[in-house]
């Protein structure tokens, strides 16, 4: 079957054990205000425009015959400065696996593997499973919000060697307000994960005044106990891609407090 991905990034060093290749799957059920991959939100392809390089030659407005350009009324293949690109490539699990397997030997020597990220990879659960089945020699990890039906969650996690599970907000209302969805399913899946015997790590974004409050971090700490956690500091540059998609980044430039956030946890480290 086909899936939609928006990037493949090589040599990612913060996406699981060793150095990895990360596949970004397009589409996400959440709308976290701090999302740094806005092109991963919609499941459909989107036009990305790097305005800063545009010379207004208008060549992209000349009509073209490319099937993939039709929805945008602009040609993504016409820009002499490479300003335009379509984010979202439909690819078969076979072709994707083939591309990834080419790197198997090298990834092994890096003690790494493949990480499925997004977007929310669970939104394309069958595609992820089908691809994973074709990567028998590779270490496989998933980076997920956990927002999925427990059945779907468990099915996908079963195919993985390592789970990077987000925990954003413990308060259901807070979660609803800042991510647009309830965290009930997420907490259910986390509870299962804690007892699953899988290898996992929790990832906690430190969003100033939203997730980095003492109240929230303490509550997360209570939930995960001595499990290992990675704290991700907020970086305003995360908003860089919004403009290219004609979107607005909802958060402001607001640095993290100068505080040792690891103190709230039994076993956490800061990723920078």
């Amino acid at each position: 079957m086909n899936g939609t991905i928006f990037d493949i990034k090589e040599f990612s060093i913060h996406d699981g054990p060793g150095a990895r290749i990360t596949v970004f799957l397009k589409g996400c059920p959440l709308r976290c205000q701090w999302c740094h991959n806005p092109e991963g939100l919609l499941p459909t392809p989107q036009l990305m425009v790097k305005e800063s390089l545009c010379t207004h030659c208008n060549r992209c407005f000349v009509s073209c015959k490319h099937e993939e350009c039709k929805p945008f009324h602009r040609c993504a293949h016409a820009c002499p400065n490479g300003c335009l690109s379509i984010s979202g490539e439909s690819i078969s699990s076979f072709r994707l696996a083939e591309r990834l397997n080419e790197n198997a030997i090298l990834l092994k020597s890096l003690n790494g593997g493949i990480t499925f990220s997004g977007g929310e990879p669970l939104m394309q659960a069958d595609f992820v499973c089908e691809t994973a089945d074709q990567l028998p020699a590779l270490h496989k990890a998933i980076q997920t919000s956990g927002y999925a039906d427990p059945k779907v969650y468990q099915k996908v996690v079963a195919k993985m060697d390592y789970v990077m599970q987000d925990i954003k907000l413990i308060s259901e209302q807070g979660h609803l307000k800042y991510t647009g969805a309830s965290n009930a399913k997420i907490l259910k899946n986390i509870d299962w994960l804690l007892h699953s015997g899988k290898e996992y790590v929790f990832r906690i974004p430190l969003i100033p005044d939203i997730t980095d409050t003492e109240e929230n971090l303490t509550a997360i700490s209570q939930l995960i106990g001595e499990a290992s956690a990675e704290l991700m500091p907020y970086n305003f540059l995360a908003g860089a891609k919004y403009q290219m998609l004609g979107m607005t980044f909802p958060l402001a430039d607001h640095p993290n407090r100068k505080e040792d956030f690891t103190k709230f946890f039994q076993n956490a480290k800061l990723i920078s």
Partner: protein
Amino acid sequence: MQTILYDFIVNQKHHRFRRSFPEYENLAEEFSNEHLSPIERMTRRFELLTSLETPVLLPDEKICFMRTVTTYPDCFTPEEWQTIKENHYVHELGYLSNLSPDYERVIASGLLTVQQNADSYGKRIIDAIFRLSDRYRDEAEKQGKTALAEVLTRIPRYGATSFYEALQFFRILHYSLWLEGNYHNTVGRFDQYMYPYLKADMERGLYTRESALALLEDFFLSFNKDSDLYHGVQQGDNGQSMVLGGIDEYGNDVFNLLSELCLQASKNLLMIDPKINLRVGKNTPISVFELGSELTKAGLGFPQYSNDDIVIDGLIKLGYDLKDARNYVVAACWEFIIPKVGTDIPNIAALSFPKIIDTCLHRDLMHCKTYDAFTDCIRKEIQSECDRICGSIQNLWFVPSPLMNCMMDPGVYEGGKYNNFGIHGTGIATAADSLAAIEKYIYLDKKISKTDLIQAVDSNFEKHSEFLPLLRYEAPKMGCNDEIADNNAVFLLDVFSDSLKGKINCRGGIYRAGTGSAMYYLWHASEIGASPDGRRQGEAFGTNFSPSLFAKTRGPISVIHSFTKPDLKKVINGGPLTLEFASSMFQSPDSIHKVASLVKAFIALGGHQLQLNAVNTDLMKDAQLHPEKHRQLVVRIWGWSAYFVELDKAYQNHVMQRQQYVV
């Protein structure tokens, strides 16, 4: 670290001791009027310049010898040079360069022994060295620096008996070789020939790791005191390459404590000299790669890695003896040369791959019915270009260097044990991508007609502008692990190497093909217009063995796959793959380990040479606006590092355009 001395050098306070002697600017005219022989001129100039020197000891300095005389007259008048060049092939400046002299032998035996076997000019030069070092000794005594005075009582006349003496001896020799007129004087396997002195001293309890490091740092600073007074295309291109680690003549891994201390000293000092090269192989432990990555993190563009498994085999295939091949070192930039006995000229000329494509595009493409027919034309053109280059290098002439002659075995005048010429191959990615575009769009997909492509290229994509985005951003590119592009690169390098096979140069040596570009990534790029890979007129090639500047690669893994496909043993003149990483990649020990693993993986896959940069583009942008705030920002150029603000804008921009990988 000696902070007082460091501050002195970094802030160029030592420049205040400098003096010029305008009355000697026209020395060559005097020489010419007297009809002096070249070797007599070299000797007299050395005698004169050493006599004009004032011994200066900087605060806290342990290793002395620094040029104070800024006047550096040529030995020949412009008219004489013209006559010489009419009758001879003159390489670069005409003086000897890119040699790795036998410091080991001279430091061990002392210059008195060397003098016995020297010709009369060598004897005079060595006497001049003695006179200057005696004046340094007197100055040290006068200032109450008894340890230094004592060292200078023994060396350079007699062999060194301690680490301190050996370092000071090296400095005197290195200084003298520069002053004689040789340039790109390389340092060789410093950690090997110096380690016995350090080891013995440590066994005697004279040094701890820390005190040895402090002395080494003092010594490293000496490379930065007066290197600006010598020639170079850009400031910093001075060839002071130091080689660490690797295997010895017998195949044993010889990375030692001194290798480690050198990496540490370079990291602590953050100065562009000496340039650190690290020899590694598939059996090198990951810890060595980690030490290397720690240095990369410092942002100097060091170390440059070379792969013993590939380089040694490649050199043996070219006819080098096993022991010599195992002792290889790195010349000024990346060229592999043999210390002590080799007088190769590893940078004598360069072949422009994109120029070959350009010629065949215009001359042959129209009548080539198949892609194979076209590549046949490419093959013939490379062969004839190699014939032309090699044919043009005849009757080579060098200014004779009496001291260098004493420090090479068996000397340099008649040539050394190896007298091979290295030819760079520039713009490989631009050429491979251009061929890939022709193969794919003209012959396979038939999407572009021959006439249209030629018109597009000739008009710098004003005509058929719709091809530009396709060729530039969507066509197969070397660095994307793409079969079409990579196979064309393999083809080009194979043909280049094969075309030089069997050719004998005018000194009886052979020719070696390489993957370096030096400054040709700008020069050669300006010789042609636009190219079929979507490169516009005036745009540079990638540096050395690297993707083109606008190739959108998925990351370093694809790049490594692409650039290890060619048989690099066949193009072993040298020329590294360059990978740029954002400095944020090096923040934790864990990420250092991952970068180190990537380097090791590159080596395991058969890469020959790798140059890794930690770069901060924001800093560079700010340095262009406010150079005064960023005097110490160091960047890697092509085989050497430089202070960013001292570079010409064209080089600054090129550095900033290279694709970098972020977390």
